[in-house]
């Protein structure tokens, strides 16, 4: 607003006037407002869902990176003394950070705990013997070295003591592929919905401009500045965005317990903190996307119309 000196009290009067004009505009074009807010809410629900699923996959990926590296299962005939000497050989392999011995009893205890956390029945009591083998869980300096370390394990002199060597490559690679695909698909869906939302918001604001065309013409001719002519419409766009965001967060708030259960079922990797994700990143993203799309829609509909 070059050349226009607006003092603070003038500004506050004009802001009050703009808020009241925006409120009148929204209630006058009720149908367009409801349509725009509903579309905005649907889009933000999709955005929030994509963010929650992505956060779950990211958590699973980072769990895989940190926990699943290389596991070497030992033959049941290997004694404790032999196991100690194997540990020295394993830790001498280039790229190995640490090798942890997990006895057959420890493995059974961990399995029972996992069953209990998942709420599944513990049927291990029906077994006469412990069927699980002892193993070495091998942590690496760099998770990308799983292949090299697995090859190293096969070539040490104690290699014949292993029944099976499992490296986390396949799981990590699968998770990376799923996460990458979801990012792309999610992005395409979110962009598609955003464009639809923009079209509906632009339409709603254009209707508001049309309904107030006489008022706008008078404002321009009596010397209202362009900023104050435009502000009510930008506020209308922001209000549609804010309403959509609040409704979305309200619905997600109600559904957060169910979403948590679904996520747990989906990823089977503990713990995925759905409520914390909702409260933080997702809430901010939904609010920012709602306000941003609302304002952008308003600006697009005003472009070249009120000069």
């Amino acid at each position, binding site marked *: 607003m070059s*050349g226009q000196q607006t003092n603070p009290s*003038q*500004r506050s*009067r004009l802001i009050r006037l703009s808020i009241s004009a925006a409120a009148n505009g929204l209630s006058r074009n009720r149908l367009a407002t409801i349509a725009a807010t509903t579309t905005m809410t649907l889009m933000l629900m999709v955005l929030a869902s994509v963010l929650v699923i992505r956060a779950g996959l990211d958590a699973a990926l980072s769990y895989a990176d940190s926990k699943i590296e290389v596991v070497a299962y030992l033959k049941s005939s290997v004694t404790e003394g032999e196991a100690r000497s194997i540990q020295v050989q394993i830790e001498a392999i280039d790229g190995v950070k640490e090798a942890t011995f997990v006895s057959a009893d420890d493995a059974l205890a961990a399995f029972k705990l996992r069953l209990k956390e998942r709420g599944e029945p513990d049927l291990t009591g029906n077994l006469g013997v412990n069927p699980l083998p002892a193993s070495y869980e091998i942590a690496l300096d760099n998770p990308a070295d799983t292949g090299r370390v697995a090859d190293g394990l096969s070539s040490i002199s104690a290699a014949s003591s292993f029944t099976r060597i499992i490296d986390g490559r396949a799981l990590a690679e699968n998770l990376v592929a799923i996460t990458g695909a979801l990012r792309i698909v999610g992005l395409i869906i979110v962009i598609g919905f955003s464009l639809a939302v923009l079209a509906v918001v632009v339409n709603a604001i254009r209707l508001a401009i049309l309904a107030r065309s006489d*008022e706008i013409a008078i404002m321009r*001719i*009596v*010397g209202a*500045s*362009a900023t104050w002519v435009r502000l009510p419409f930008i506020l209308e766009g922001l209000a549609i965005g804010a309403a959509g965001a609040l409704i979305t967060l309200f619905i997600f708030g109600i559904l957060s317990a169910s979403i948590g259960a679904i996520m747990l079922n989906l990823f089977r990797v503990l713990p995925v903190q759905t409520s914390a994700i909702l409260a933080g990143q997702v809430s901010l993203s939904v609010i920012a996307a709602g306000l941003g799309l609302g304002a952008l829609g308003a600006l697009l509909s005003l472009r070249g119309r009120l000069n």
Partner: protein
Amino acid sequence: MSHGAELTGDQTAVVDLQGISVTYPSGHIALGDVSLTIQRGEFAFLVGPSGAGKSTLIGLLVRDVLPTKGEVHVAGFPVHRLSGGDVPRLRRRIGVVFQDFRLLPRRTVRENVAFALEVTGTAPDVVATATDRALRIVGLSALADRYPSELSGGEQQRTAVARAIVGDPELLIADEPTGNLDPLISWEIMELLMDINRLGVTVLVATHDSDIVTTLRRRVIGLEGGRLIRDEANATYHRVG
């Protein structure tokens, strides 16, 4: 008068056009080499057939139209090179009355008049005082709480005049102000415009009403085909001789 924009042109003139041409992108010449000056406190008629360039000339004064050539000064503002941000400041120095009144139907007479000041951020006490004064001048104080639909055509045009003068403009432009009114009411509106002129406001009336122009014998600026074909004091609608 005090405003931040650079004051230029003839300081005794409220309107000063020098060598103005307006050519539209289609190639149509709406105004060609028009020069004229309207001094502070003058009352002038702008006449000419449809398509003569009257609307373009009014558009130039309120900076709805930019000249392709020449200079326009209005109330001291160099309109031809005014930045977009300064346009509202120019328009606050000009009041405009239209043939179709352009009142806001959901606002009362008082609210319609006050609206012109409210949207420029004027303080409420100033708005109230100026609105009362404008309504008094046009004789509508008693009808201040009525809605436009409850008024006659003449009363609606009086409301539009009150809205045009509430900001205490230097120039009042009336574009066919009697076009929608019967002859008796038209005379009332013309008398009102002359009263406002007597208060010191420069008045420019674009009209096709030959009876009014001829009877009042004021300055007549005539346009035809985008050219200034006459500019005479104490003149009639049709050129004599």
